[in-house]
């Protein structure tokens, strides 16, 4: 009805505004043009959505699907219900690996954030030298973790490494950085902190520089000691940024893989075996594809839960003024 009215309307209009008829058509499209106008945006996002669907949505659903099967990627898939999950949750190794992952996360996240916060406070003043230091600190972040791992493996080598050489100068007996089950996880964390520090510092420095200077002036007039100013003004103002870094840090820790794979291969005695490395082993070494998919689902749920926490809190968390 409405379309019919429109058609009549445009039909009457056109002869009267002959010169403007082309403009008129643009502003008041006919039926065909109207449909086209509505579908055009969807056509334009279609390629992106197709890629997203094929490479993201489909694999996720396929992973969940596969996790209910016994499969080695070659033989026929055998539906076994939730048996993979039962196997997993009753497997001692799974809990060990999950525990290792949490251990990694609990060392990695607080240490890297506190350390980068301290460095950022030092680098807060926007001077030439500070910008240089910041750039240098960011460099590990653009280097592949594979290269980094090799450099650190050399430095941590028990016999020829830099670390033990330095220790020997102080008459400290050599440490088997990557071979000692009690030390290996710590060494991995060290490498990962070193890599991500520059990124954390960059973000925290930006956030620090975003805190308006007049707040510090007001604090100075309020007789606030530096330590009070830090805990009552700086830290609360940074909290949204720190919260973001903690969450992304946790998610990153859950997914840690390269350094484990290259530097320790999960060893010694599974002491550095983490969730993703175990998943990789199950999937691509032992070809327990169904079981690996079930682990993938658990990982996805964990990371998904953290992401959900982030967005829920973020929505409640006030963006000050």
């Amino acid at each position, binding site marked *: 009805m409405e379309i019919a009215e429109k058609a009549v309307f445009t039909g009457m209009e056109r002869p009267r505004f002959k010169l403007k008829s082309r403009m008129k058509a643009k502003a008041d499209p006919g039926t065909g043009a109207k449909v086209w106008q509505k579908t055009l945006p969807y056509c334009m996002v279609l390629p992106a959505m197709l890629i997203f669907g094929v490479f993201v949505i489909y694999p996720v659903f396929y992973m969940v699907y596969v996790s209910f099967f016994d499969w080695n990627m070659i033989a026929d898939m055998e539906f076994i219900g939730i048996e993979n999950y039962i196997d997993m949750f009753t497997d001692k190794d799974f809990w060990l690996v999950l525990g290792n992952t949490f251990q990694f996360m609990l060392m990695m996240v607080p240490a890297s954030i506190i350390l980068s916060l301290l460095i950022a406070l030092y680098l807060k003043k926007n001077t030439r030298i500070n910008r240089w230091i910041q750039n240098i600190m960011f460099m590990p972040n653009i280097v592949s973790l594979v290269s980094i791992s090799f450099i650190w493996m050399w430095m941590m080598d028990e016999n020829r490494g830099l670390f033990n050489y330095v220790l020997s100068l102080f008459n400290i007996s050599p440490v088997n950085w990557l071979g000692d089950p009690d030390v290996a996880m710590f060494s991995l964390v060290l490498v990962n902190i070193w890599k991500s520090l520059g990124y954390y510092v960059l973000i925290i420095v930006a956030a620090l520089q975003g805190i308006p200077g007049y*707040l510090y002036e007001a604090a*100075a007039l309020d007789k606030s000691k530096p330590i009070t100013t830090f805990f009552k003004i700086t830290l609360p103002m940074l909290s949204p940024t720190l919260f973001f870094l903690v969450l992304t840090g946790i998610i990153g820790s859950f997914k840690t893989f390269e350094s484990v794979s290259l530097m320790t291969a999960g060893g010694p005695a599974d002491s550095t075996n983490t969730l993703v490395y175990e998943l990789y082993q199950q999937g691509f070494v032992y070809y327990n594809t169904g079981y690996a998919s079930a682990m993938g689902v658990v990982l996805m749920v964990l990371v998904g839960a953290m992401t959900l926490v982030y967005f829920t809190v973020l929505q409640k968390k006030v963006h000050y003024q």
Partner: protein
Amino acid sequence: MKKIELEQVSKFYEKDVPIIEDLDLGIEEGSFTILLGPSGCGKSTTLRMIAGLEEVSGGTLKIDGRDMKNVQPGDRDIAMVFQNYAIYPTMTVRENIEFGLKNAKIPKAERRKRIEEIGGITGLTEYMNRKPNALSGGQRQRVALARAMVKNPQVFLMDEPLSNLDAKLRTQLRTELIELHQKLKSTFVYVTHDQVEAMSMGTHIVLMRDGKVMQQGTPEEIYDDPDNVFTAKFIGTPPMNVFRAEACPKSWKIPEQAHYIGFRPEHVRFFRPETESIELEGRIITREMLGAEILYKLDTPYGFLQARDYHTADKHEGNVRLWLSRGELCFFDSQENRIRSHMEEY
């Protein structure tokens, strides 16, 4: 008694580029002193030096006779209200007000008493547990005021505290600040570029330009007796009319050294006064009816001028005759400074 004294104070950010040079200024105890001037005149810098937020590059700054060099802002017994309020966004209203008291280690019972009292005065009692982002601009300004007042400082420093508010609220808070000053009897130093604010609130105005004091005195002195063309033109809405002396006819008997002649818009008359006067002709360009008064803009052979008439039945139009009373003219020399010796002669 002088509460704050600046002696030969200068301020440099870069070498050889003085923001303020050799500034001498005394601020009386209990006064409501306004630092007034166009932007970039150094008024805010002066205030911030008094607060201790900017270092004094040269000269001495004393509060209560004590040199303030190396005295921290928090130890100067001052409170400051910032243009953008500078309230702590992560703290509630109460925490904002309490912060300074806690740092000064005032006991809890005393703190509570003072906050309650201040909350009553500023009308913030019911907003105490709110975060600043849930407050309107006017309320935020009150929080900033409350935070300053609660410390019972000897000196209040205010840096354009009303400029972020809308016109109506500004007028209202202006009155409140005057009342506050009368009640507290402490020294107020107030920075503004708005001469109406300055005239209406100040007991003492310091008019600045390019880091120098152009004139200081009571609002009446500044208005009625300007020392220079800058003051004459900066103060008053509309400002003083200033003609170039060379454009005016000999019959006006202008003193020889005078390069400029100034007169207030309200001294332009549409009738012949009884005192000795100058007569001129003009054509009315615009007429603004403001209620009690009417502003005219006129074109005369000697330049444009503005005239203020009071609301009467007379409605002036087209070409009119105007009279200026000779005693009300101000003469300025080539340096734009006032010539006073001729006041009595003419």
